[in-house]
């Protein structure tokens, strides 16, 4: 009897030890790991229309999802070779740090603490956002500064939580925070009147409002109380992988600037007079090789879902129910902040 217990204990210990060892050796190269697995594990929002949400057929669609697909196309030559991992604001960093996902594209604000202290690398900005408030028009509020004493629904574990505390503190007005785990619960409480206002990134508010029964009854207040540059991020310490994602995003932005679209890309790939277009599309220079990929990596990335402008229009642009204007997210040539460094 004693012996069998002992043997059992040994076996258990062995299994635990084996499992722990198996998790250890993934610090080498994310690129190699992704190519070996043949699938890119991409952390996304657990459901925010326009940014990342499964459509009626269960296929993930959205602005953030398109970045995942572009990276998969560049690295694996297949925009569908993505395993989407839905994450909440609280689980996203643990998922990335532990290697559960290779890349996190989940409207995540680039901050110093996250970049430096949490040991992540932000790879640019795919959406310049800011925190706003949505209120029912019946409340009769036209400015966030009139929200003294209001009950505010807020997603817990986000930078918006800290901005909110600072905003009310600076303006010397009080509020009652109602912490909530997901966007869907926030929507339920807000619509039931359990909170007067819901606050999150303005893009998220627009997306949430689009899914309401009567979007017209709700207004987004004019105050934008914070800077929220949202972008993709990876773990510290694998600069080659970081470079690939960073330049895939830059390729999407540059493609819009140079007029490369998913419709004319085949034609342009035969060679053009513009050397920069040629370098992006791999007909000139060795940029793919430098990144550890083949020459047509950027071409595949752009073909996946189109260039930045096409992705924007298709998922969150003015023709969609979400109806976001380009605003800060226009090309620098159009007065926006999008500015891809040169492909040279």
């Amino acid at each position, binding site marked *: 009897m*004693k012996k069998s217990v002992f043997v059992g204990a040994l076996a258990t210990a062995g299994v635990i030890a084996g499992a722990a060892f198996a998790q*250890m050796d993934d610090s080498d190269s994310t690129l190699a790991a992704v190519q070996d697995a043949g699938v890119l594990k991409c952390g996304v929002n657990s459901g925010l229309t326009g940014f990342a949400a499964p459509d009626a057929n269960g296929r993930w669609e959205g602005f953030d999802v398109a970045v995942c697909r572009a990276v998969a196309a560049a690295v694996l030559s297949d925009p569908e070779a993505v395993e989407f991992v839905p994450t909440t*604001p609280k689980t996203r960093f*643990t998922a990335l740090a532990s290697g559960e996902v290779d890349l996190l594209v989940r409207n995540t604000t680039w901050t110093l603490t996250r970049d430096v202290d949490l040991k992540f690398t932000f790879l640019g900005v795919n959406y310049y956002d800011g925190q706003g408030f949505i209120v029912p028009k019946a409340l009769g509020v036209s400015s966030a500064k009139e929200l003294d004493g209001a009950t505010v629904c807020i997603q*817990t574990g986000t930078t918006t939580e800290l901005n909110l*505390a600072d905003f*009310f503190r600076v303006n010397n007005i009080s509020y009652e925070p109602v*912490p909530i785990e997901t966007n869907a619960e926030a929507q339920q409480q807000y619509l039931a*009147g*359990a909170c007067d206002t819901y606050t999150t990134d303005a893009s998220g508010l627009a997306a949430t409002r689009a899914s309401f029964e009567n979007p017209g009854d709700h207004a987004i207040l004019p105050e934008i109380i914070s800077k929220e540059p949202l972008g993709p991020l990876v773990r510290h310490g694998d600069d080659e992988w970081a470079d690939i994602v960073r330049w895939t995003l830059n390729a999407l932005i540059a493609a819009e600037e140079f007029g490369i679209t998913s419709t004319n890309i085949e034609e342009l790939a035969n060679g053009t007079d513009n050397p920069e277009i040629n370098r992006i599309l791999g007909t000139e220079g060795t940029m793919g090789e430098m990144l550890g990929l083949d020459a047509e990596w950027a071409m595949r990335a752009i073909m996946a879902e189109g260039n930045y402008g096409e992705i924007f229009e298709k998922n969150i642009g003015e023709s969609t129910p979400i109806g976001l204007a380009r605003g800060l997210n226009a090309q620098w040539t159009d007065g926006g902040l999008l500015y891809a460094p040169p492909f040279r």
Partner: protein
Amino acid sequence: MTTVTQPEGRSFRLSMLIYDSRYRSATIQIVALIGFLLLIGWLVSNTAQNLATLGKSVGFGFLGEPAGYDINQRLLDYDSRDTHARAGLIGLLNTLLVAVAGCVLATIVGVIVGVLRLSNNWLVARLMTVYVEMFRNVPVLLWIVFSMAILIETLPPPSAFRGDEPSASMLVGDSVALTNRGIYVPEPLFGRVDEEGNALSWRQGLGDVHLFGDSWIRFDVSLELIVILATLIAGIMVSGLIKTRADRIQNATGLRPTTWYWRAGVIIVPTAIVLWLMGFYLGKPELRGFNFGGGTHLRNSFIALWLALSLYTAAFIAEIVRGGILAISKGQTEAAAALGIRPRRIMSLVILPQALRVIIPPLISQYLNLTKNSSLAIAVGYMDLTGTLMGITLNQTGRELEAVMMTMLIYLGISLLISAGMNVYNNSVKLKER
């Protein structure tokens, strides 16, 4: 002549460690212990090594940094500039609040249901069975979310109380408001003041004492509360003296003097006088801005969590109580009945005191379960320890290891304290063997 075969020398061979039953168990234990220690050592070194690879250091300095976030339900004063340690303390107090309130309600409901389940009344007994089976066979998380959904969807928002013809109205003489943001009840206040803070009467409250200055464990003690508690305790002690005297008279003469009005009077009258002297009044909640102001706000996250946890645990406690009562032989009931004791008194004087020694040990684990289940609070946004220290603090500082370990240690501490306290009580009610 006898031949004495000398037993072979007591030479010790290594194989005896396994094949000799005298040594075997010790060998196995030592090997298992070494293996266990190696496993722990390996886990620690692996963690340290992985953290070093990630470039993270283990440190608790973050506890002294400003938290930066707000907490809605706080038993002590707190604002977003306070430290993470303070935020954790606020969360801990919220955990304790819901755990204590939950244990109390669960015990009351559980005992009543457990006794009623044994009732001779068919309908009552069956209703209680339905309650028990319904609550203990559905996960508690669902009950928590369900309670919250009911509170949010069925109760009116504060705006429904506004206007000339409001669709909702306050209860109990305009002093209690049921809204989908929680329940507002009157709060006890002392010493009326006007808007400039000048006293409106000579009857004044005593104010607060501030302890621990500005540190993270600072708290205020209300002097009124201390005075009231002191008065109550004194009243109860005097009441005890009256009872002792009544017992003495009963033992001597066989007649018990009627003392209940004396005993109630010495508790109630002095307390009422003290309250009047300190200018006690109830602050009623009233519509102010977007919400009700004044009064005490019982948030619906607290109510949902409290009710769900209590009713869920009460179903288990009911079964424990029922088992405890059934463990007492029927002869006890019959003997008590033969002495002419009425059924209700048989329960409280004969059955329950004996059943307690069967009930207490499993009851302890139900209290522990309730306390630990309270960590599901985040499902309804109740800011308990899991919501502050292991939730927002962890998320904003990225100190997973430290935050999770601290939270585990705190829960362990709470559980051990509950166990210790209940064991003391168990020792006092268990069968005295003389």
